[in-house]
């Protein structure tokens, strides 16, 4: 017998790509079953010479990227996802949904489902689309798509529904994908230093080399490079940090929690209360200003408006100097540590590392700490050798080759030509779009307005255009078609979303998804989607930081029961719409463009950017993997912002003045009355909308700040059913009722004061509702702060505002409001909550039906409680 495999195929096991893949894995298949998911050894197909293997030497040591892909556990546990007991097997219809009679929208999230055939399901979907389009107009159909899903190209996901309506020519209302992991950078930093589209430093070429050679320290500020990059780009961050330690680069972690980076890499951990980084930053600036320890000459030549910052920081504007003592009260960092950090920084060469997410960048007013960080970098001569901002993920952000800080590959193979979905396209937006953060309001057909498309890939000036809902042609939202059913567990104020999708104006709600999770169980019709293993596709790995590659993704196994690809579902809906003739005539061909899957894949390959004369389609079909060589003499390319540092006139930034704008001329002009995001970054205590400070009135009832990172053992809401992850003690905690609860970290001093013990089950609560979790008493969290990963699978006991969730999906109780008045970004971190012990057996008596949902102790909720067996 074979102990290895009958066949092996390549798959991208990144979990958030929008055509940009990651985590190239080799899948071994035997007897029609996936037996093994393993790192790909590139050198089984391509030699080191062929890929122009790079190494980096610095301070007498050599960094090796290796020829083995650096997979995270989230990829290696994929078999759990593939063979999950929680898969959607076949099309389902809600038992009390009758398109020709009672629709019972109030029962969404509560009622069960029964099996129907694909034909029946597609007939209903097509008829509803036609009816809604004719009754209310095409803008009354909201398409929800998102990057929070598996990485696919020709197989779809991320907006095949939008594609179908575009090909139809009618359009739809598009859910505009906000800058969820970049909010502060997007809304704030861009107005200081440009850096479109997301606001983090874009010019990252050779910054890995620059830091390795020149930096004394890196500040890992609010980021967890041992966690967040996993779903997007694997584990090169970890190797990099260990190597930096070996060659003597100090690592200072500034975050409320001892995140997984601080846990193993920190030379110094500075705990800071969630979303108070702005106070700490201002006090560092104060120290530099009063001690004269910043680069005044650089400020004169590279920036504008510095005097406005001095005016504010030194207290001339409001009578309050932003001293370390002032900051200590707000941020919880002792003033002597703030001064020590400021002085160490002033005499050293320091870069700041980010991995997106974290408490600093996803909370209320997050544009302020983001802007202040750029101020800090500027005051110590940003761009000087050793002084840049570094990113631990997104090494191919929207295919911009400058965003890779590691030695650059000659070709970043692109799959856009066969990317059949639409997610970030301006073309698809038209005027009918809704910021993702405002979806509940739109679905309830409220009237509201905002600025900008809010889409993460759009430039800074887009933030100055005013929009309103409903638009002139829009008669409200009456149908949702979603391929990304995790709004309530990934966005802000999820309990309001639950209310919104149960309102009677929403006449039809269809979801296509592979797993029975989160928003899925609110739909009227559920369509089953294939997993990565079951599809034929093409993908790239451009996010690993090692070597860019392009590979053929042959199906490993047969589709699960009746599952179809996302794109096939859009095609099938089109085919069923064709039955109505008229405008729908020929729609299927418009969607498929008369191409087979193989045609699409070939199209993707031919336009990937690789030289297809040297390496032909036939070569690709045979070899299945192409790896790009590293550019020759990569080490000679200017590092980071060195050109701007050396000659700001010749190499200006993308700001209106071309320089660093301490005072944003554009914001001053566009929003002269904005006190939340003024021309100069400030400490914003609270506003009419947001009272999320420990000094706020609400803190009397909800005294803790809740911190919630991108999860360690999930990619947002994905992977919550993985049985080998759920066995890990920081992933789930078994309650006395046998249910696996999401851990809530609490400092031992707080736990003692509240009488909470490790292993107790408690509720996190505020006026928006309650979510349960297991009490995890640990020195990994500072006093006054609670920590719970976000994205746990919702298991809602009481729906809607003020509700109760057993799964620990804390986005349900995140603030409903946007970042600030003119910034429609999300707030999902650093908000007020209380904690109290609960008796799960009492709750089970109170809510017997919900507490008795079919449950597998290994994988959690299973569909049996949702599907009525015939």
């Amino acid at each position, binding site marked *: 017998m074979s*102990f290895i495999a009958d066949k092996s195929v390549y798959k991208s096991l990144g979990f958030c790509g929008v055509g940009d893949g990651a985590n190239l894995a080799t899948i071994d298949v035997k007897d029609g079953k996936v037996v093994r998911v393993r790192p790909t050894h590139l050198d089984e197909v391509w030699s080191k010479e062929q890929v122009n293997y790079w190494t980096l030497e610095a301070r007498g040591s050599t960094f090796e990227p290796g020829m083995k892909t650096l997979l995270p*556990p989230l990829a290696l*546990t994929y078999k759990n996802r593939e063979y999950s007991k929680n898969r959607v097997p076949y099309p389902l219809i809600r038992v009390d949904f009758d398109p020709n009679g009672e629709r019972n929208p109030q029962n969404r999230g509560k009622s069960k489902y029964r099996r129907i055939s694909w034909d029946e399901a597609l007939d209903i979907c097509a008829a509803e689309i036609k009816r809604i389009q004719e009754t209310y107009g095409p803008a009354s159909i909201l398409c929800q798509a998102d990057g929070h899903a598996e990485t696919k190209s020709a197989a779809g996901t991320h907006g095949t529904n939008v594609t179908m309506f575009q090909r139809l020519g009618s359009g739809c209302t598009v859910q505009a994908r906000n800058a969820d992991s970049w909010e502060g950078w997007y809304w704030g930093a861009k107005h200081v230093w440009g850096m479109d589209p997301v606001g983090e430093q874009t010019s990252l070429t050779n910054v890995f080399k620059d830091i390795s050679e020149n930096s004394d320290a890196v500040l890992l500020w609010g980021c967890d490079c041992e966690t967040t990059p996993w779903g997007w780009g694997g584990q090169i961050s970890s190797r990099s940090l260990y190597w930096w330690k070996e060659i003597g680069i100090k690592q200072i972690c500034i975050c409320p929690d001892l995140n*997984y980076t601080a*846990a193993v890499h920190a030379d110094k*951990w500075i*705990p800071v209360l969630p979303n108070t980084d702005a106070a700490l930053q201002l006090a560092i600036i104060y120290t530099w200003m009063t001690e004269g320890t910043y680069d005044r000459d650089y400020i004169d030549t590279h920036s504008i408006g510095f005097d406005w910052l001095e005016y504010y920081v030194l207290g001339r504007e409001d009578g309050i100097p932003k001293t370390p003592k002032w900051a200590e009260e707000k941020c919880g960092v002792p003033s002597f540590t703030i001064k020590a950090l400021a002085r*160490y920084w002033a005499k050293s060469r320091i870069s700041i590392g980010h991995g997106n997410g974290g408490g600093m960048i996803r909370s209320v007013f997050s544009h302020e700490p983001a802007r202040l960080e750029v101020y800090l970098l500027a005051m110590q001569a940003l761009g000087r050798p050793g002084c840049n901002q570094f990113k631990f993920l997104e090494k191919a952000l929207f295919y911009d080759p400058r965003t890779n800080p590691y030695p650059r590959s000659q070709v970043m193979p692109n799959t856009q030509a066969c990317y059949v979905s639409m997610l970030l396209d301006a073309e698809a937006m038209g005027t009918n779009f809704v910021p993702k953060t405002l979806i509940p309001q739109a679905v309830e057909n409220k009237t509201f307005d905002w600025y900008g498309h809010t889409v993460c890939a759009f430039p800074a000036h887009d933030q100055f255009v005013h929009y309103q809902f409903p638009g002139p042609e829009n008669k409200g939202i009456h149908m949702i078609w979603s391929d990304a059913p995790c709004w309530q567990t990934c966005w802000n104020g999820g309990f309001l979303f639950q209310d919104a999708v149960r309102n009677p104006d929403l006449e039809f709600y269809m979801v296509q998804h592979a797993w029975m999770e989160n928003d899925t169980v609110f739909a009227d019709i559920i369509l089953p989607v294939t997993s990565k293993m079951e599809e034929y596709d093409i993908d790239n790995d451009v996010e690993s930081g090692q070597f860019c590659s392009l590979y053929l993704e042959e199906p490993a196994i047969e589709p699960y029961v009746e599952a179809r690809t996302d794109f096939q579902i859009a095609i099938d809906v089109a085919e069923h719409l064709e039955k109505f003739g008229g405008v729908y005539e020929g729609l299927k061909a418009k969607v498929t463009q008369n191409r087979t899957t193989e045609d699409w894949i070939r199209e993707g390959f031919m336009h990937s950017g690789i030289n297809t004369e040297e390496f032909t389609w036939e070569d690709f079909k045979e070899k299945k993997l192409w790896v790009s060589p590293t550019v020759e003499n990569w080490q000679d390319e200017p590092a980071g912002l060195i050109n701007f540092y050396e000659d700001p006139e010749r190499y200006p930034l993308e700001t209106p003045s071309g320089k660093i704008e301490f005072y944003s001329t554009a914001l001053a002009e566009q929003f002269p009355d904005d006190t939340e995001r003024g021309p100069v970054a400030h400490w914003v205590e609270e506003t009419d909308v947001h009272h999320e400070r420990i000094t706020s009135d609400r803190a009397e009832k909800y005294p803790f700040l809740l911190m919630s990172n991108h999860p360690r053992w999930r990619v947002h809401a994905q992977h919550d059913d993985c049985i080998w992850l759920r066995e*890990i003690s920081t992933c789930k905690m078994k309650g006395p009722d046998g249910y696996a609860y999401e851990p809530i970290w609490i400092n031992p001093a707080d736990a003692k004061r509240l009488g909470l013990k490790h292993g107790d089950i408690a509720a996190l609560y505020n006026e928006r509702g309650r979510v349960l979790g297991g009490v995890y008493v640990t020195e990994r969290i500072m006093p006054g702060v609670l920590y719970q990963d976000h994205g746990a699978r919702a298991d809602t006991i009481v729906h809607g505002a003020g509700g109760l969730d057993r799964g620990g999906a804390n986005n349900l109780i995140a603030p409903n409001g946007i970042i600030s008045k003119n910034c429609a970004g999300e707030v999902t971190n650093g908000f007020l909550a209380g904690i109290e012990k609960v008796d799960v057996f009492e709750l089970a008596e109170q809510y017997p039906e919900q507490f008795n949902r079919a449950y597998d102790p290994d994988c959690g909720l299973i569909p049996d409680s949702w599907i009525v067996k015939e």
Partner: protein
Amino acid sequence: MKAFLVNPDVCNGCHNCQIVCKDEHCGNDWSPYAKPQPDTGQFWCKLEERVRGTVPLTRISYWPVIGAQDEALREYAPEILQDREDGIIVIDPEKAAGRKDVADKFEGVYWNERLQIPQGCTGCAHLLDNGWSVPRCVDACMTDALLWVDEADIPENAEKLSEGSHVYYVNFPKRFIGATVVDYAADEVVIGARVMLKDAQGAVVAQTETDDFGDFIFKQVDAASFTVEIAKDGYELQSIAVDTHDADVNLNYVDFKAVA
């Protein structure tokens, strides 16, 4: 003879080793080497973690434990092992049928209730015999914290968790003692203070200076009783008794007074 070499100093706690062991063996029948491992509950390769210290000097050490690769097993029940020249311990699923005593006796050997056999790490012998150069857990380690080496190449200072084990550790975590030295009256950390670590007999076992943050740390010290002495010109000598028998010690903020 091959052996595992673990370096907890570069183990990031990702659990890849623990997970791919399950990926390889749960639901896969590699007879005659190994029968399927139950879907959950067994950890032939188990990642351990120790949360050390207190806020703000909290750190974590991780290390994998591979229990079944131990000569004690061969001594106790040679009759259930497969004959191999490379010395890897492989419990034969046929010969070991019914031997619950083995699972009861050894950490890292688990009783499979359904199949009525004891099971544990096989060193992925089925792969090594078929072209693989390392076991799955080693292949999945992204930071070289877990290596597969010739036993002859194991560093001399390496330790083992048990006498007969084929799993060796370098930099296995001991204890740390650390603090931030602060002149509260001046509201400043004290930089460049000399810090001495003395053992119970008063002998200096380590010394250092406080850094730019007023911090000092002694790493890899024994579980024992110590005295920490902090000195700097112009300050009163500070002497603090420290006991690391139970845990690492964060002395937190030490109030260091200037001479009046």
